[in-house]
């Protein structure tokens, strides 16, 4: 039964709306304190997803860092903002760097660890439905918040999902609200890495395959930010409704597309 709203309750409601908190930023202050005092739990959190020495050598041995993205001119105006949120860039080219960024292989921070159920709940709370490839079975773990607003779902290596570069991960699916428009994206191949326009169902998609690479992001200030959260496995990027998905794996293109085609809401 709804609660009766008398004058006192309405006056309290108004009081709540007008509460004036201090101008401080406790989130930034708390994060700064946590960064300044790493503890075992924080180290554990990073340790789980950190690649072994061999993976670090593989990644450090990569002669080129691949900067992957979508040219802004290929993106419809309505979806440009979504793409910018997804990749953190507004104008991207496939280029190579002569140096190996120090971030490669250092850490793979996928975000805040939560259970897959919690991740689905957080997505629900944020107003979108989290899906995952049903053929992959239940994800082993989930992380939220990297990139901002995204959910990372992780499956352990298995015979079906070989380990990606000694990372301890078989499949990594990142889901994020926002869409890409792949129309007009052409095949680009340099140095053994290819970016292809493919389809997942009736949706355009990108397939990125080749040598281990790092996704680097040019932020709005023009600074290059190395996204060390990525495993640099073969990558499929596609959309389902308003959600952009990214699948990283050791699968080949057709296997990845088949897997992506089994996308279903996560129970």
């Amino acid at each position: 039964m709804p609660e009766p709203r008398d004058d006192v309750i309405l006056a309290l409601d108004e009081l709540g709306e007008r509460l004036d908190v201090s101008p401080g930023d406790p989130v930034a202050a708390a994060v700064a304190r946590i960064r300044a005092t790493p503890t075992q739990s924080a180290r554990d959190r990073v340790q789980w997803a950190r690649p072994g020495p061999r993976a670090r050598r593989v990644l450090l041995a990569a002669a080129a860092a691949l900067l992957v993205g979508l040219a802004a001119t290929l993106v419809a105006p309505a979806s440009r903002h979504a793409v910018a949120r997804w990749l953190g860039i507004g104008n991207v080219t496939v280029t190579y760097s002569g140096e190996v960024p120090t971030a490669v292989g250092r850490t793979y921070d996928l975000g805040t660890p939560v259970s897959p159920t919690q991740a689905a709940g957080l997505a629900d709370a944020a107003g979108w439905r989290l899906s995952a490839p049903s053929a992959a079975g239940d994800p082993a773990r989930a992380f939220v918040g990297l990139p901002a607003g995204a959910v990372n779902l992780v499956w352990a290596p298995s015979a079906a999902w070989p380990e990606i570069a000694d990372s301890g991960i078989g499949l990594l699916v990142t889901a994020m609200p926002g869409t890409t428009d792949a129309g007009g994206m052409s095949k680009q191949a340099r140095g053994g890495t290819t970016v292809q326009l493919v389809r997942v169902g009736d949706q355009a998609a990108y397939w990125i395959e080749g040598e281990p690479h790092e996704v680097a992001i040019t932020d709005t200030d023009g600074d290059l930010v190395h996204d060390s959260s990525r495993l640099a496995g073969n990558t499929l990027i596609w959309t389902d409704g308003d959600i952009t998905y990214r699948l990283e794996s050791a699968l080949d293109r057709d296997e990845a597309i088949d897997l992506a085609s089994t996308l279903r809401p996560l129970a």
Partner: protein
Amino acid sequence: MDAYASLLRMHEGPARRLALVVCGSPGDADEAVQDGFVKAWYGLAGFRDGAAFRPWLLRIVANEARNRRRSAGRRAGYELRFAEDRASGGAAPSPEAAVLAADRRRTVGAALAALPPPQRDVVACRYLVGLDEAETAAVLGLPRGTVKSRAARGLARLRALLPERVEIGGTGDA
């Protein structure tokens, strides 16, 4: 860490309002929120699978706020500050209406401050922070029946403390 900051941003507003209404001191409230967010980070491993994040986080913040209130002791005042009326798409309130609205808020705020803290916490969580009965119970660590009874007693006491009719509206037509 950026992910955790993003998560906190989603719940920052209610956390700050909660700390403020429990502490009754903006400075203490800020510290309580900050400490609560830090403790929550280190307690993430203990976050129960399937539980809702918001009540879990707010409970940590509420505990921090209550600890500060206890430390401050009986001499500590209880002071809430309120933003002034602003025009919201229409004309700004007249100076007279703004004065009346500010006076009304001070009156209700003073009545709230006069409540016993256990009742005030429940009333504030329910009506100033906007938590429902179940969330209030989770955040304050109380049975739902206790939340219900304290809210009823708190509201009854407020009605007794306030003038017979509290005019609301606050933008010039009250």
